[in-house]
């Protein structure tokens, strides 16, 4: 597969702070690449550098094999961006907003009308055509933001935290829409600090922190990097401290915590840890409400790599 984006040795500094530190990566045609990292990790700065909105100190950026510059209009024509902040005109209706931004790319009025309606349909906004942005809920606004960025059917789409502060229903709608875009052949760069989203959506993930790539690969590849193999969570109303201390002696246990009546036990390896823990609790007459087992998440990977939580 061809490289749609090639970033090489990209370094961006704000005064003395390195926001992006010698970053190199590629994005293949047709894939969804997730840039995962906490706030301030350099995700948006990287995108803004790629889009030639920001000056950078070092490095090169190629899109579709060509160097990206502010006047690379032929490249810009093939790009769509959904920014973290809602980028719409308060003075225009939903339809006019999408039509305006689509019109910056598509001259033909009939084709544009078709594209605008398709974008509104994809974003689930057909019933809100005549609404003004201030009349929309936060979730609908985010969907409008997406419709404005993708109406012209770009081949390369950047989505910069499109689901921040969005209700679950709108989030699902947005994620479904992004899958459709990928199915229609678009290459997507998706930044977020929500690990669940990248796990659901992305073919490949780059974990960023302090402007550097910590790890990259598929979700499964990355989970291999985690120091734990299983995490079991149990809701317990009461447990003696002496019993708690015995948990450390169970086989494969790496660590455990007991906070707010929730016991979390992390295991380094092993696949039958759940049965053993249930037996241990029964043996010690500990009653529990819910118990469930999880494989390591990307947050655990991030924790293993940096020693801090992804959402810290």
């Amino acid at each position, binding site marked *: 597969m061809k490289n749609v984006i090639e970033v090489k040795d990209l370094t961006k500094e704000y005064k003395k702070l390195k926001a992006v530190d010698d970053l190199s990566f590629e994005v293949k045609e047709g894939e969804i690449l997730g840039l995962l990292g906490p706030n301030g990790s350099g995700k948006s700065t990287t995108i803004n550098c790629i889009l030639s909105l920001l000056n950078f100190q070092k490095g090169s950026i190629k899109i579709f094999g060509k160097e990206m510059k502010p006047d690379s209009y032929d490249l810009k024509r093939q790009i769509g961006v959904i920014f973290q902040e809602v980028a719409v005109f308060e*003075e225009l209706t939903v339809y006019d907003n999408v039509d305006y931004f689509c*019109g910056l790319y598509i001259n033909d009025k009939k084709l544009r009308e078709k594209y605008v309606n398709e974008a509104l349909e994809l974003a689930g906004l057909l019933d809100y055509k005549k609404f003004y942005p201030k009349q929309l809920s936060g979730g609908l606004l985010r969907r409008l933001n997406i419709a404005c960025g993708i109406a012209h059917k770009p081949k390369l789409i950047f989505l910069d935290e499109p689901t921040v502060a969005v209700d679950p229903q709108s989030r699902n709608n947005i994620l479904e829409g992004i899958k459709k875009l990928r199915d229609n052949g678009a290459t997507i760069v998706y930044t977020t600090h929500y690990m669940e989203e990248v796990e659901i959506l992305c073919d490949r993930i780059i974990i960023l922190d302090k402007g550097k790539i910590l790890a990259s690969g598929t979700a499964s590849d990355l989970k291999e990097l985690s120091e734990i193999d299983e995490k079991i969570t149990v809701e317990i109303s009461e447990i003696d401290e002496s019993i708690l201390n015995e948990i450390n002696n169970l086989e494969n246990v790496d660590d455990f915590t007991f906070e707010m009546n929730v016991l979390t036990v992390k295991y380094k390896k092993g696949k039958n840890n759940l049965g053993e823990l249930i037996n241990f609790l029964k043996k010690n007459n500990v009653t529990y409400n819910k118990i469930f087992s999880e494989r390591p998440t990307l947050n655990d990977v991030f924790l293993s790599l940096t020693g801090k939580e992804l959402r810290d």
Partner: protein
Amino acid sequence: MFWHNFKYSLKVLFKSKVLIFWTFAFPILMGIFFNLAFSDIENSEKLDVIDIAVVKSDEFDKNIIFKEAFKNLSDGDDKLFDIDYTNLDKAKQLLEDDKITGYLVFNDDINIVVSSSGINETILKYVVNEISSNAEMINTLAANDINNEIKKGNYNINYEEIYAGAYKLVSKDTAKLHNISNKNLSYTMIEYYTLIAMACLYGGILSMYIINYKLANMNSVGKRTAISPVHRGQMLVSSLLASYVVQLIGLAILFVFTISVLNVDYGDNLPMIILLALAGSLAGLSLGVIVATLIKANENAKTGILIAITMLGCFLSGMMGITMKYIVDTNVPLVNMINPASMITDGFYALYYYSTLDRFIFDIVSLLVFSILLIFISYFGLRRQKYDSI
């Protein structure tokens, strides 16, 4: 793309209630205020005939042009000056006693002596400057005629006849001084002209508002627009054109309102005043564009800077008191040469004080050059704009 951006820029501007208030409603409210405040003094506040003195001297006697011009200016019902031809001591005394605005002394040069700065002093200075520029023209024409006579071998030259001929040639220009009338010149009218001029310049808020939507460092819409494949020049000009249309509609409403509701009489000068307002509006809009593109600050700060520049320009141009124009013209003429507010006020005064349009046209051209220059600078500032931070 050009008309697409133009159409939506118009929509955005017309939908912005704040802009509509400042562009359409505020000038009308100010007009109503002026009407209420000045209507009672409209008839009594015509400028008085200006008392001046001319110190008699051989130099003045030889200066045919000035003598003729002053004769015209102190004749008839609509005369501008009452002139006392006297000696230097008496002129000084008259000035000291506050009986005259100033006096003129003709030596190698023409000295204007005044004791204070005000509208009468400014008028005196303008008129003398104008006559001087005509005098130079007459002298040049006469010198050419004299050279021609010498080339023909005619050394018996009738200088008086040649100067009279040159004077006749320029008499169209000097004749305008016959028509200088103070009968329309009232403080109320000056306030209405000031209102028009300020409305022109405050159009900069319109262009700044719409251009801010094209700048990635201003807002998220700007970021989205900046990554679109539309040429920056196209975006700039179509946005500017949209703000110009809105500004002109605002001005048209202001003119219609002042004429039909407030019964303001712009007289024969109305087409020229409209022309000046068109050029002045372009200057105001280009000022807004350059502030938007070149100054790196947030929207509120930019608005503050634009208003501050406009207010300062208006102040220095004499819109808030004509004395300031006189002081600036005398001490730092360069400031008002690049001050669009001064170009507009100067254009209005030119319509009042000169019947030919030379100076008025000069002001119009100055405003256009100023506007084009600012738009070009803005374009080059915008063309390949990348930011250090957004």
